[in-house]
């Protein structure tokens, strides 16, 4: 039987109350949101907080809205709410692509957007999606609010810039015309963490009529990409023509710059292959959406299948 170690429990009734509790209980306190990552880790003693501060009562942090040219997502928004949000899907289809392949429908009812980000698992999907979208995180403490770029949010596996006494409250994404976005994930089974996944956002010059890339964002997860992104590939894309050849080259650059490790989900060279291939595919799907060509069907291949011409992956580690 797996049960968490002894822990104290406090129920926060407001953001200020949560911040007061976090300040009082110090660095050994952990925020309890959906709990669908934290509680399993507590069962395994990978996390052993002294105090849990339950913020499930903070329903005011559960919202998705467009304000001042930004999509704003409250940190306590459940995965299912983000997946159900028409405005989020219209503006940033990558979010729906990613949410559709996070865990399973029942887990998505409880797991939260902010909790997933703060858990900071190196294979987490939304971290890559928000990195691709160049989102901004809003962090609150008792003295005020600060904002951090998505790519400065994670400081390492299971580590973020959210300090003891602080709470992630909101994620903001600037709405820029001429954009499209998509997410492509390969996993061993439905609902599992990815073997590798890539998100892409693309913005075309002068809106969607031109074929030149004004800006692009690439998010990578589970493949050891620095800050869940691929900065060199993005540099290559800026000003380039939006073609499959460009995307294939960007994928190669992204693959060269990531540092995947072999584990039970697959060998490093296969993950590197996925980083390149999925980056190219996500860019292609993002372009189709930016130009109104409509969404491409999501690609979810099992490791046994391969596209023509791609190197044959070695067998996985298990």
């Amino acid at each position: 039987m797996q049960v968490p170690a002894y822990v104290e429990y406090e129920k926060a009734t407001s953001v200020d109350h949560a911040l007061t509790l976090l300040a009082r209980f110090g660095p050994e306190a952990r925020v309890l949101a959906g709990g669908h990552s934290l509680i399993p880790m507590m069962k395994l003693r990978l996390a052993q907080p002294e105090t849990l501060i339950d913020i499930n009562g903070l329903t005011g942090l559960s919202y998705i809205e467009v304000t001042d040219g930004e999509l704003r997502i409250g940190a306590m928004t459940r995965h299912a709410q983000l997946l159900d949000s028409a405005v989020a899907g219209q503006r940033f289809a990558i979010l729906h692509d990613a949410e559709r392949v996070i865990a399973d429908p029942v887990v998505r009812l409880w797991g939260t957007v902010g909790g997933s980000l703060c858990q900071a698992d190196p294979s987490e999907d939304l971290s890559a999606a928000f990195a691709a979208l160049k989102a901004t995180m809003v962090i609150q403490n008792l003295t005020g609010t600060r904002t951090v770029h998505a790519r400065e949010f994670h400081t390492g596996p299971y580590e973020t810039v959210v300090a003891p006494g602080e709470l992630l409250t909101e994620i903001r994404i600037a709405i820029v015309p001429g954009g499209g976005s998509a997410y492509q994930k390969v996993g061993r089974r439905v609902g599992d963490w990815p073997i590798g996944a890539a998100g892409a956002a693309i913005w075309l010059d002068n809106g969607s009529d031109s074929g030149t890339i004004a800006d692009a964002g690439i998010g990578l997860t589970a493949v050891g990409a620095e800050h869940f992104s691929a900065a060199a590939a993005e540099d290559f894309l800026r000003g380039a023509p939006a073609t499959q050849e460009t995307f294939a080259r960007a994928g190669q650059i992204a693959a060269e710059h990531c540092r995947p490790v072999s584990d039970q989900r697959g060998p490093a060279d296969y993950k590197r292959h996925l980083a390149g291939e999925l980056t190219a595919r996500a860019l292609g799907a993002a372009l189709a959406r930016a130009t109104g060509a409509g969404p491409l069907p999501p690609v979810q291949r099992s490791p046994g299948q391969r596209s023509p011409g791609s190197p044959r992956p070695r067998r996985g580690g298990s």
Partner: protein
Amino acid sequence: MQIAVSVNGTEYSRVIEPRLLLIHFIRDDLGLTGSHWGCDTSNCGACVVWLDDLPVKSCTVLAAMADGRRVLTVEGLERRGELDPVQQGFAHCHGLQCGFCTPGMMLTARWLLDRNPDPSEQEIREAISGQICRCTGYENIVRSVRWAAEHESAAADRDHHGLGDGSEGDDLA
């Protein structure tokens, strides 16, 4: 700590350790063993119950998180002495063999039908994709949920299933 939880319409007040998982509270503290404790890792879904209006894998929430909320377990699915259409569907279509996954499957199916009274086979399979059955190959579970959908639409004038204080007609969908 002291918690007060409404389970299948009955109020329970208990002193618990904060680390107690909801599934163990339901089974061991309340003696409601219809909910099954399976994989312990949020993968199998045998422990699915409703917390307020939504299904949850009760091995992955603390009983403390249910304080002040409503829980629905398989024991609370029947209404007025009659099995829920989902339960009837599982009986009619042989939706179970060993029965271990069944309570969780039925609670998720109930939630699906409340949101989507006429789900396609694909929608049913998606809804239960976080739950594992090792007997049926899922075919008869899908048939059971379809059976419930079809028989429910025929009996649409019946009170909607609800939970809470035991009063009938609560609309929680």
